[in-house]
C-alpha cells in the first residue's frame, strides 16, 4: 500500500481479471432474503459478498441511549471467520468497529431519523466472502435493506471504491489490487443530489488524480444506483 507494486497487476491495459481499468466486477443484488428482518439485501461485487439486514424502527434499550428528539441508527459490520483466506478470529475488532462507524456515518445523512424519536434502527452487515471493497459493498447492501424496510430516506446511498495502481486510475479494487495499490479511495454518494456521504483515502494521490477519481466514482455510483433501482422495483413489481 502506498507504493508501486512489484507484481504486474495491469498488463497491456487489462487488469489481472481481464477488466478494463474503469470496469467494475460483476455486480449482483438481491432483496428480501431474510424473512425475519424488516428489510434485507445481499450484494456481491465479484467475489465479495455482503449480506445485510435491517431491524426496526424498534424500542431502544438501554434507555439512556434514547434521544428524545430523534431516532438513532446503529450499524454492525462483521466479517465471517471463513470470509478470508486465513481464518479471521471471530467477533468485533478495531477494524470492524471503525468500519461500522464509517458505514453508519455514510448512511445517516440519507435517513429521516427525526420521524422516529426515541427509537433505533438496527442495521447489520455480514461479509461472508471478502475480496476487497467490503465496506462499499456493505453500504450498497444496507441502503437497499433500509429502503425495503420502509425506512424514510432522502435518497438511496450508493458506494464504490476507486484507486491507483502503478500510475493507472482504476475502479472497484479487488483484494489483491487493494493490497498492492498506491492509493485507494472509498466513496459513497446520494445519487439524486450528487452529495458525497463518505470519502476515505489511503496512500498518495495528487489533487488532479483525486478529482479525476471522484468523477469516476460518481459515474460508477450512478450505474450501481440504476441496478439498485431495478432490483427494488423488480421485487415490488405489481404490488399495487
Amino acid at each position, binding site marked *: 500500500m502506498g507504493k508501486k507494486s512489484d507484481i504486474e497487476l495491469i498488463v497491456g491495459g487489462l487488469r489481472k481479471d481481464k477488466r478494463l481499468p474503469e470496469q467494475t466486477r460483476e455486480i449482483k443484488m438481491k432483496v428480501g432474503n431474510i424473512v425475519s428482518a424488516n428489510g434485507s439485501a445481499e450484494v456481491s461485487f465479484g467475489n465479495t459478498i455482503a449480506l445485510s439486514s435491517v431491524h426496526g424502527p424498534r424500542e431502544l434499550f438501554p434507555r439512556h441511549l434514547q434521544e428524545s428528539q430523534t431516532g438513532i441508527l446503529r450499524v454492525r459490520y462483521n466479517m465471517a471467520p471463513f470470509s478470508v483466506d486465513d481464518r479471521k478470529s471471530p467477533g468485533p475488532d478495531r477494524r470492524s468497529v471503525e468500519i461500522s462507524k464509517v458505514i453508519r456515518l455514510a448512511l445517516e445523512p440519507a435517513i429521516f431519523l427525526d420521524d422516529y424519536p426515541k427509537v433505533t434502527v438496527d442495521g447489520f452487515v455480514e461479509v461472508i466472502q471478502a475480496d476487497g471493497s467490503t465496506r462499499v459493498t456493505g453500504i450498497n447492501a444496507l441502503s437497499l435493506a433500509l429502503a*425495503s424496510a420502509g425506512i424514510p430516506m432522502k435518497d438511496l446511498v450508493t458506494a464504490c471504491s476507486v484507486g491507483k495502481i502503478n500510475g493507472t486510475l482504476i475502479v472497484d479494487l479487488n483484494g489483491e489490487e487493494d493490497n498492492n495499490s498506491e492509493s485507494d479511495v472509498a466513496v459513497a454518494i446520494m445519487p439524486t443530489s450528487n452529495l458525497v456521504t463518505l470519502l476515505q483515502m489511503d496512500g498518495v494521490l495528487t489533487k488532479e488524480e483525486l478529482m479525476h477519481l471522484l468523477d469516476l466514482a460518481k459515474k460508477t455510483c450512478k450505474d450501481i444506483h440504476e441496478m439498485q433501482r431495478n432490483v427494488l422495483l423488480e421485487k415490488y413489481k405489481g404490488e399495487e
Partner: protein
Amino acid sequence: MSSREIVLPGDMLGPREGKKLGSGVYEENEKVYSKFLGMPRINENEISVVPLSGTYLPRFGDRVIGVIEAVEVSGWFVSINCPYSAFLPLSEAVDEFVDLQRTELTRYFDIGDIVFCRLSKVTKNKLVQASMRDFESRKLRNGVLVKVTPTKIPRIIGKEGSMIMLIKNRTKCEIVTGQNGWVWIRGDNKDKAIEAILTIERESHLAGLTEKIEKMLGE
C-alpha cells in the same frame, strides 16, 4: 407520473406548485421527492406517497387494536404494534366513578387484554394517548389477533367495507380491524377467516381478489 407507478426514496414527484405536502414526501428547492419505496398519490391538492412496507407509525385519530402491557396507578399502557406504547388513562376508559383507594384497576383491564381504541393525542415526541370514549371502542374478549402489514389494512377492508363484509357474512365471524395492522377475529369459523385475511395480505396486488376470496369461502 402516473399514480400506478412505484417510486423509490429520492425520486422526484414533480414541482410543488402550492400543493399540500402529504405523508411520505419531502420538499427541496420547490420540488417534491419521495421518502419511501411506495406508490405516489398525486392530485391537484396534495402529493403523498403510500409506503409498501414498514412499521406502523401512530397518528392522531387512528382506530387501533391494542394489548394491555402494563397497569399503572391511574391508567394502562397499551402496546399498539409499534415502538411507542399508548397510555390509556382511567378517565378515558371507564365511564363510572372509580375510587382509586379501594379499586384494583385490573378489575377493568388486566395485562394481556385486547382493546379497540382511538388515538386521541400523538405529540411530536411520540407520546401517545388512547381513548375509549366513543361508541365503537370496547374490550375485545375471547378472540384471536392476526398480524398483517399495516399498509394492507385498507385492502382487507375493501371499497366501503365490501371485502370485510364478505368475510364476515360468509364465516359468521366477528372481525375488527385496527389501522396498526392487527386484526381481531372471533367465531367458530375463525380459521377460514384467518386464511382469507392472510390471502388478501399476500395477494393484495393481484387482480380478481374478491372472486378468489368468494370462491375460497364458498357458500
